[in-house]
């Protein structure tokens, strides 16, 4: 381990060469470190199968979004842990009321995973109303309505339902995932479910692409967005 310790001037390596090599090694390590910590994001721990209704007033203005989100059975049983209930394996709406309260309260921080745009402009949402949980066949479903701060009439409406950080995976229900309630009959509904990951995306492993993709902002979550469009002429 010990090298000759004669401190000859020649023992000093050329500054540039030595520094360069070491800086390169450092860059490699830091690069890997950043990649891994930058990768500090979670895969979904909650899967939601979503059904939603857009609620319209008599004058044709959108007043709110009504959701019914069914959780996966692992998360359902996790959420139910320690919730007092009378009958084994069954929970009444009353027994689940405190949990529903917690759910909607905590969803606020995440903007209820719901974004509404009317003719391209962001529409602010109010706190949820009419919220409750039901438990059927080992699946817990959260029902709630998000009223708009003010009803909007728009030619082109877009509602997005997703978690940009993909901690919660939102999948639209297979059958009738979105309904219009009380909309004008000439309004057209179009639903674009999230594409999710594709194998091709997973294979973009080229060095530069990889590091670019780590520093890129914003685009990651978009692929999990479920989009609902309503066009009213």
């Amino acid at each position, binding site marked *: 381990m010990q090298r000759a310790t004669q401190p000859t001037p020649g023992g000093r390596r050329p500054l540039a060469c*030595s520094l360069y090599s070491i800086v390169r*090694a450092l860059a490699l390590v830091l690069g890997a470190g950043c990649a891994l910590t930058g990768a500090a994001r979670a895969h979904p721990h909650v899967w939601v199968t979503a059904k939603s209704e857009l609620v319209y007033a008599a004058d044709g203005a959108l007043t709110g979004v009504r959701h019914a989100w069914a959780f996966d059975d692992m998360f359902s049983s996790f959420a139910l842990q320690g919730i007092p209930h009378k009958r084994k394996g069954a929970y009444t709406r009353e027994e689940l009321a405190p949990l529903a309260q917690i759910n909607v309260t905590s969803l606020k921080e995440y903007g209820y995973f719901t974004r509404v745009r009317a003719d391209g402009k962001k529409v602010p949402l109010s706190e949820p109303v009419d919220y409750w949980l039901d438990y059927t066949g080992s699946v817990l479903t959260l029902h709630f309505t998000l009223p708009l701060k003010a009803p909007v009439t728009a030619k082109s409406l877009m509602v997005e339902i997703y978690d940009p950080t993909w901690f*919660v995976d939102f999948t639209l229900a297979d059958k009738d995932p979105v309904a219009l309630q009380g909309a004008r009959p000439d309004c057209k509904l179009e639903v674009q479910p999230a594409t999710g990951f594709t194998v091709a995306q997973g294979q973009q492993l080229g060095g530069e692409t990889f590091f670019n993709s780590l520093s890129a902002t914003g685009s990651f979550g978009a692929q999990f967005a479920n989009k609902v469009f309503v066009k009213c002429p």
Partner: protein
Amino acid sequence: MPMISILSGRVLARAATAGAIGVVLLLLMRHTALAQGAFGVGSPMSAPPEAAGGLVGWFLQKQAAYYREFAALVRAAKQTGGVAFGLLGVAFSYGVFHAAGPGHGKAVISSYLFANGESWRRGVTLSFASALLQSLVAIAIVGIAAVLLSGTAQMMGAAVHDIEIGSFLLVIAVGLRLAWVKGYGFLAALRAYRAPAPASLSAAAAEHRTRAAHEHDHAHDDDHDHHHGHHDHDHHAAAPDGACPACGHAHGPAPQDLAGPGGWRRGLSAVLAAGLRPCSGAIILLVFTLAQGVIWTGVAATFAMGIGTAITVAALATFAVGARSAAARLAGDRRGVGLVALRTVELVAALAVILVGVLLLTGYMASERMFLV
């Protein structure tokens, strides 16, 4: 002049440490204020800045796929009542991929190994110890909160949150300790480099003397400090004339470093910092198996996950150890510029640990968001 730089170096290092502690305390206060009222909501950590698909996405996708299989496999295990090898296999694979995903553990362990020039065996040991600890913490939380106390998911979320804060503080503490030690090493190397050549020559003899003392010191004074590099600076401080340009040289890890009584303790802080925070997935799985009446299957799966995690972390630790020895080799005879560069790199690794800790604590780098309930 060397005397002066020793003094100013110490003053600088102290001032820097005091400053860093102050910043951390301020951030902590701010954080605590934010955290209040957030209980039951899960982690108050805000959403992380976005990263995109690519390799990260692929890892996430794999994890998600494995994770999705858990529920069905647990139900199958409940039906058959036998040992759920399928579940254990999937849990193991999940662990391998999961360790490549969120978590500061790897960053802490790798930087620690890199900065300290630890051996590969120690690196692997630390990796396995931290992964095992992570499994045990998950089992302890569910065992105590859910099984013994019949507590709710919120209770577990709160426990995880507290542990999380503790482990982030510990990361910062480990980083500060490393930076302190490595800062000295850096200053010593810098001073040695700056020292005029005649002084170096005259110091050669002194160095030979001190080296004897050094090895002596080394042989039975191992547990008095954690870090290999530390010897350098101790040594320096011990040489009052300060004219000891080669004092900063590193020795190869002596065998007794690994097996000696101080061996375990030396890495303990890094293991705690890296492994204290349990994996949310493990907790959810454990609670699910509890609800299905097959909690022991869940416990076994949690350990399988831990082994998978350990393997990935050990692979990264190997990389860190390799990079470190490459850097040391590039530093050549470890004097002059080479030594300064090596010490700089060590210091940067130490500072990186602090940075990771601060980012985690302030929520700019989210680990895993805690539950939604």
